[in-house]
C-alpha cells in the first residue's frame, strides 16, 4: 500500500460479488460503503458481511476505507463498534462536522484506524479547516458534490460551476494543513470525455485524486493523475542536479537557468516517488 491516492472506488457494502473482487480494479483506495448503497433494513447484513470479508479475504495492494453511516443516524455507533475491530486503514465519516469528528476520534482512540472526512454540507465546507484540524488522526478529505448541491439549493451540473468555491476552498484548507484532498465523483459513467475533463480540472486546482462510483472510471482517473513523461524527466534532472550540488558542497544551485529551491526538490521527489510506486519507473531507473 502507498500514500498515493489518485483514485478511490466506492464498493457497495452488501454486495458479495463486488466485495470479493474489490481489489482488482486498479483503484489506489477502495471505500466499502455502509451508507448510501445499503438499504435501511440491510444495515446489519452489510456490517456483518464486511466484517467477515475483512477477517478472511486478503485485500491486496489497496488502501481499505469503510464509509460508515452519519453521526446522527441510529447505525453510526454500531458501525464503529464493529468496524474498529477490523484491520482497515481508514474510516470515511460522511456529513462531517466538528462535533462528529471529535466523537469519532474519541471512539477510535485505542485503534490505528485513521479518519478521512466527507465534506458534503454547506456548513462542512465553511468549517472545513477546523474539521481537518480537530485531530491528527484525520488525514484528509473528500468533497461530496451531490449532497452539497442539495444543501446549497442548486442544481448539480456536469461542468460544475456551482462547486467552484467549495472545490477551491477545500483544497486550500487541506493544503494548509498538509492533508490529502479528493474530488467528488463524476456521476455520468458513460461519459468518459466528461470524466477526463472533470478529472483534469480537479488535478489542475490541486486535488490529489478523485472518487468514483464505477470501476470503469478508474483507469481514466489514474491516467490523468499519473505524472507525465515530461514531469518525470524534469524530476529526474532536478534530483541529479541536487546530488551534484551536494557533492560539490553547494547550498544553492540552478537548472536551466532557474534557481532550484526546496519546494521544487520536494515536488520532484514526489513525482519520482509516485512514478516508482505506480510502476511508471522501475527501481534503479532513477
Amino acid at each position, binding site marked *: 500500500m502507498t500514500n498515493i491516492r489518485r483514485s478511490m472506488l466506492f464498493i457497495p457494502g452488501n454486495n458479495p460479488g463486488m466485495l470479493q*473482487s474489490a481489489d*482488482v*480494479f486498479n483503484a489506489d483506495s477502495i471505500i466499502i460503503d455502509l451508507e448510501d448503497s445499503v438499504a435501511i433494513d440491510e444495515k446489519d447484513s452489510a456490517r456483518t458481511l464486511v466484517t467477515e470479508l475483512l477477517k478472511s479475504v*486478503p485485500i491486496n495492494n489497496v488502501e481499505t476505507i469503510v464509509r460508515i453511516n452519519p453521526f446522527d443516524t441510529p447505525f453510526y455507533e454500531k458501525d464503529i463498534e464493529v468496524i474498529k475491530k477490523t484491520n482497515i486503514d481508514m474510516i470515511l465519516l460522511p456529513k462531517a462536522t466538528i462535533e462528529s469528528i471529535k466523537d469519532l476520534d474519541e471512539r477510535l482512540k485505542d485503534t490505528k484506524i485513521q479518519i478521512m472526512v466527507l465534506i458534503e454540507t454547506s456548513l462542512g465546507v465553511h468549517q472545513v479547516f477546523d474539521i481537518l484540524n480537530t485531530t491528527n488522526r484525520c488525514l484528509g478529505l473528500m468533497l461530496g458534490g451531490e449532497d452539497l448541491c442539495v444543501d446549497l439549493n442548486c442544481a448539480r451540473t456536469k461542468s460544475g460551476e456551482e462547486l467552484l468555491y467549495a472545490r477551491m476552498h477545500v483544497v486550500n484548507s487541506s493544503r494548509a494543513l498538509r492533508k490529502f484532498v479528493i474530488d467528488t465523483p463524476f456521476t455520468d459513467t458513460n461519459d468518459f470525455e466528461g470524466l477526463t475533463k472533470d478529472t483534469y480540472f480537479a488535478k489542475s486546482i490541486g486535488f490529489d485524486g478523485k472518487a468514483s462510483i464505477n*470501476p*470503469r472510471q478508474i*483507469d481514466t482517473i489514474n491516467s490523468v493523475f499519473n505524472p507525465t513523461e515530461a514531469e518525470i524527466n524534469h524530476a529526474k534532472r532536478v534530483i541529479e542536479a541536487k546530488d551534484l550540488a551536494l557533492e560539490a558542497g553547494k547550498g544553492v544551485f540552478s537548472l536551466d537557468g532557474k534557481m532550484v529551491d526546496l519546494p521544487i526538490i520536494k515536488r520532484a521527489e514526489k513525482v519520482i516517488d509516485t512514478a516508482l510506486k505506480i510502476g*511508471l519507473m522501475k527501481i534503479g531507473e532513477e
Partner: protein
Amino acid sequence: MDILGYKKDYQLFAGTRSKIKPSIIKSSKNNQSNNKKRLSIKHVLDEIALKDGMTLSFHHHLRNGDYILNMVMEEITRRNVKDVTIFASSIFPCHKDLVKYIEQGIVTQIYAAFISGPVSEAISEGKLKKVAVMHTHGGRARIVESGELTIDLAFIGAPTCDQTGNITGKIGKSACGSIGYAVTDAHFAKTTIAITDNLVDELDDFQIGGQYIDYIVEVDAIGDSKGIVSGTTEITKNPIGLKIAKLATDVIKYSGYFKNGFSFQTGAGGTSLAVSEYLKKLMKDENIKGSYALGGITSYIVDMLKEGLFEKLYDVQCFDLGSVESIATNPNHIAISASKYANILDDCLINNLDFVILGATEIDLDFNVNVTTTSTGEIMGGSGGHSDTAYGAKVTIVVSQLFNARIPVIKNKVICKTTPGETVDVLVTERGIAINPLRTDLVEKFKNTNLPIKTIEELKAISDNLVGIPKEIDFDDKIVAVVEYRDGTVIDVIHKKNINNKG
C-alpha cells in the same frame, strides 16, 4: 478399444502436427434440372428412397431460431425410418424435439461442433444409442471432404433461393448473412434440398450454386428472426469482464505481433466483444491497420471495417443484424465456407491468424482448455472453431474470470480436453496474466512490461485460496461422446453423467 458406433480405425490425438493425410474427394455434382421445385418437404421425401441408417445434415446459421431441423425430422419420423444419424454443424435448445426421437431410437447418432440445451443433456445421460461425435468447425468440413462420412440428405435453410437453386443468406426475411457451414454439405451430399421462405426468379450473388441443389421447397418461415440473431452479442457491462478485456488488449499491444497488416478473430461473448472495442481504440491511438478479421462476425467488427481499421472481413457466420446488413452491402465483407475457414485439408484462413480471443470453461496447468462440458462434466457447448483457431493463431489468448459464483476456471486437469494446451498461449484473468511457458518468446517479451504477469500455478493458488478446491466429479464408465481434434484423432471422450438438478 471399440467405441460403440464410432469408426473402428480411429487414432488417438498425438500432437497438433498430424501425420494423418486423408485423400480428398472432389465434388462432381452438377444438377442443371429446371424442375427442382416441390410443394413440400413431404413431397420431396416421397420421391426419395429413404432407408435405415441414413445420415442427414443440417447447419446452424439460423441458430436458436432454426425451424428446418424440426420441420424435416417431423416428416422423417412419420416414415418408419430407423437408425438415423444427424450431422448438424451445431445443435441449440430449439432442437429439443430431437430428444424425443433419440428416446424412440429413431435418431441413434449425432455429429456436431457444438451442442447445448435438452439434446446435450440427453446425450450426457446416455440416451443416444451410439456415441456422439463432437468435431470442430474445420473438422466437420474435413470429415465430409475426405469421404470419411457420406451425407445422404443435406437440408439447407435458404434465406433466399432462386429457381435454379442458387442460395444466399444475405437477403430475405430470414436473412442470416453468411451460410458458410452449409457449403460443404451442399457440395458433397448425395441429395441436397434447399428449404426457403424467399423464392426469387434469379440471383446474381449467391454463396451456394444451384448445380449442387436437387430440390427446392418453399415454406412460410425457415426460422424465427428473434432467435436467428442471438442475444449474446452485447459488450459486457460487468466491470470484471471489462478489466479482463483491457488486459487482453494490452497483451495484444505488447506481444510483438501488433503491427500493420495483422489479423484478428474474436468470439461473440461479452468479454470478447469488449476486447474488440478496446482494440479499436488502441488501433486508432497507435495508427495501426489490420489486414482482416475472421470468423463469426459481429457489428463491433463491422464498425472496424467501416472505419478502415481492417481491409477485409472473412465471414463464416453472422452473429447479429449489423453484420447481416454489412455482408449484404459491403464488398469487403466476404462470405466464406467452413472449409476455407478452418479445414485442415484446405488452404484455410486460420493459418494466417495473428490473434484469436477465446473463452474457457476450464483450463488446466498445461493450458488445455475445456469448452465442451460444464465444470461438472455435462455436455454444454463444444469446440466450434475453438481448437481450429487456437491452432492457427500466432497468439491464442484465453479470457476468463478467475472464478465466478464459486466456479473456478483453473483446474489441475480439465474434465474434457477440447483444445490442446500446446496451442494456447496466454490466459488473461482479472487477477493476472499467465503465459504458456512453451512460448519462451512471449515470456521474454512481457518481462519488461508493467502487466501483472504470473504463472498459471500462482493464479490457481489465488483462486484455490478464495473458492476452495472443488470435489472430484463421479462419472459412469459408459462413453457417450468422443471429442475429435481437427485432424480427426480422438483428443478426449466424455462419460455418462446423471444430471443432478439440485440447485
